[in-house]
């Protein structure tokens, strides 16, 4: 039974097979691909900084940061100031946060008896878009991160403006999602405390329990994070057992017959990426508690994502304090990129999970470019013997509506998946 899932930055076709009134298997097909990797071929390296954000309109900034890091990793030696690194991490955080707000208020709410809330979604996410614009010129689609640093000179006024936007966003979080004190929320280690509070997030979590959906969405309970930074640790977590070593060498992509997407595995296994994965590898106390009670279900996934929102807002304020204004924004690389013939690989955490970019340069021009997106990890389409993460999560559910909820709890980005 084929169901077209829409409004996921495109569409996907899910072909459901039922057995005994339960979902027995589901095939996931992504329908379009643009061939960005081909569009990049033979262009000068820096052009990738303009083209790659256009892989996606909602997570294009993650693609930018992954691109500039991949380019910089083509150098043997290159110096990036701490200031530039911090500002890049800030704008990346802001993109994650705006994603999370949109997902919660536009995608998730309607599954729990409330209408979509565009006003809240746009209000909160546009605060973050504005914060990015203060530092990077505009959002969406800027290219302010360049090989050697960033193009913008950051003034004191800029940082003050950004901090007040973060504060306004935290106030929104408090007034709408969970009316907990952010400092409490930051270190909270029990979901019982959440249930004592009020807010849209609390309502959704309570509904999941009330509707007996706490088993929905469970999959392999296996998580992986590649894009370590000052907040996220890279590593993998098998249930709660964390191992901080992950290597790109073990990542393999595999073509799928029917779909334009490619599957991706780590040591031949499917892993979940995204906010829940990051929280498990970070051992975030609140999420560990949710996981203890409800495993890798939609409960934990939804909580992890909105919890990450508050934590990134909080962490960003700390990052701002660490900026040394005396440092330069940009340090000209000693070797011009036109002289570089090399390869570089990078990973950043995008909203939906780890994003990996791999570039090969010859004489400063792009010979090859490969991108592996988070949705490829979560929405892989395998056969019954090695199911993808979301496939596995949907099996055993009793209706397509239930499957849609689980599917969208992974937050799919169709354009990224097929790029």
């Amino acid at each position, binding site marked *: 039974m084929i169901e077209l899932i829409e409004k996921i930055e*495109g569409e996907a076709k899910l072909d459901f097979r039922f057995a005994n009134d339960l979902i027995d298997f589901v095939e996931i097909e992504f329908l379009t691909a643009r061939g960005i990797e081909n569009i990049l071929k033979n262009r000068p390296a820096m052009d990738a900084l303009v083209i790659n954000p256009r892989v996606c309109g909602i997570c294009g900034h993650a693609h930018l940061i992954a691109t500039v890091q991949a380019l910089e990793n083509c150098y043997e030696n290159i110096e990036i100031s701490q200031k530039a690194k911090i500002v890049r991490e800030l704008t990346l955080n802001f993109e994650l946060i705006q994603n999370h707000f949109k997902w919660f208020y536009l995608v998730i709410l309607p599954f729990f008896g409330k209408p979509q809330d565009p006003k809240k979604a746009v209000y909160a996410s546009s605060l973050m878009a504005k914060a990015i614009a203060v530092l990077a010129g505009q959002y969406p689609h800027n290219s302010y991160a360049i090989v050697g640093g960033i193009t913008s000179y950051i003034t004191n006024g800029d940082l003050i403006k950004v901090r007040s936007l973060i504060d306004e966003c935290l106030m929104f979080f408090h007034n709408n999602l969970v009316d907990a004190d952010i400092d409490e929320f930051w270190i909270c280690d029990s979901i019982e405390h959440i249930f004592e509070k009020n807010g849209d997030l609390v309502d959704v979590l309570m509904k999941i329990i009330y509707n007996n959906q706490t088993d929905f969405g469970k999959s392999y309970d296996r998580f992986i994070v590649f894009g370590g930074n000052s907040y996220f640790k890279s590593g993998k977590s098998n249930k709660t057992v964390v191992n901080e070593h992950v290597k790109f060498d073990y990542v393999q992509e595999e073509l799928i017959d029917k779909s334009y997407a490619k599957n991706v595995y780590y040591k031949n296994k499917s892993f979940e990426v995204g906010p829940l994965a990051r929280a498990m590898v970070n051992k975030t106390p609140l999420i560990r508690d949710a996981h203890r009670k409800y495993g890798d279900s939609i409960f934990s996934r939804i909580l992890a994502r909105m919890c990450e929102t508050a934590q990134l807002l909080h962490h960003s304020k700390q990052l701002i304090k660490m900026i040394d204004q005396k440092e330069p924004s940009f340090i000209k690389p000693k070797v011009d990129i036109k002289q570089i013939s090399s390869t570089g690989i990078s990973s950043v955490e995008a909203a939906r999970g780890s994003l990996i970019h791999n570039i090969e340069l010859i004489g400063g021009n792009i010979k090859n470019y490969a991108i592996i997106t988070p949705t490829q990890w979560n929405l892989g389409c395998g056969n019954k013997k090695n199911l993808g993460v979301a496939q596995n999560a949907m099996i055993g559910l009793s209706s397509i509506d239930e499957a849609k909820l689980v599917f969208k709890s992974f937050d799919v980005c169709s354009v990224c998946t097929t790029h």
Partner: protein
Amino acid sequence: MKPRILWISGISCYGNVHSFLTYTNIDIFLDDFEFIYHPVLDSTYTLTQIVEDVKGCDILLIDGAVSDDFMRADKSIKNIIQQYASVVEKIITVGTCATFGGIFQHSSYTGASGVHFKADELQSDFLHLRHKTISISGCPIQPEILVNTLYEIKNNMDIKLDSFLRPKEYFGYTIHNGCTRNEYFEYKVDNHNFGELEGCLYYNYGCQAPYSSGSCNKILWNEVNSKTRSGSPCFGCTEYTFPKIGLFETKKNMGIPQFLPLGVPKRAYLSIAGVTKAFTIDRLNKKLM
């Protein structure tokens, strides 16, 4: 009466959709207009319903490039456009891909192009629709331009268009108008380094603002900033030439930029440049702070 809008995407990245979603008065907008279909927001119909037969519609928005091979809900995007184009009052091509082909004219779909133009060449498939089309180019669009244009349509206002069907109110300016680095451009202080407040990026860093149309430095981005103000060159994303090759480089022939400011004859530019080069203005050669 709320005008009914169908927003359908061709070969797209959804950048225009998400730029639209930075428009802070969206609740007021949604009170004044009805989306019969939207790529992200809830809409009257699903995609499947929209393509199965023609629903009542007043304005058709198309973003993304179009091609005979590209489908939405198993229907060719061009067919969807033809079907709705005959019932709507106005069509808007949203973004550079839908207007000129943009980045995704280079995608793997055959003959991908904008609805009316492939670069600056008029395409024949939708010629009969030109008279009711407005182009809003940009990669992505500035949301204010789209929203304002929709209100102008709703209120039956006169919209003057340029030869690419873009509203002159927004595209009559160049991106250069309003850049905070203007003085450096005027007096040809070209010794710019990235990460600095001072200097102009036109001469050495590929800035296309002096010859690209748009309002980025007039209606700022996200109400606060723009690329050139924050030290990035303008990549000319509103024009039919986007994306050029070598976007961070200024193509020069023996020191003269290949692309001169819009409408400025070569001899005029060189004379002006020559005069300014003869003088050194101390203030402009010092750091601002």
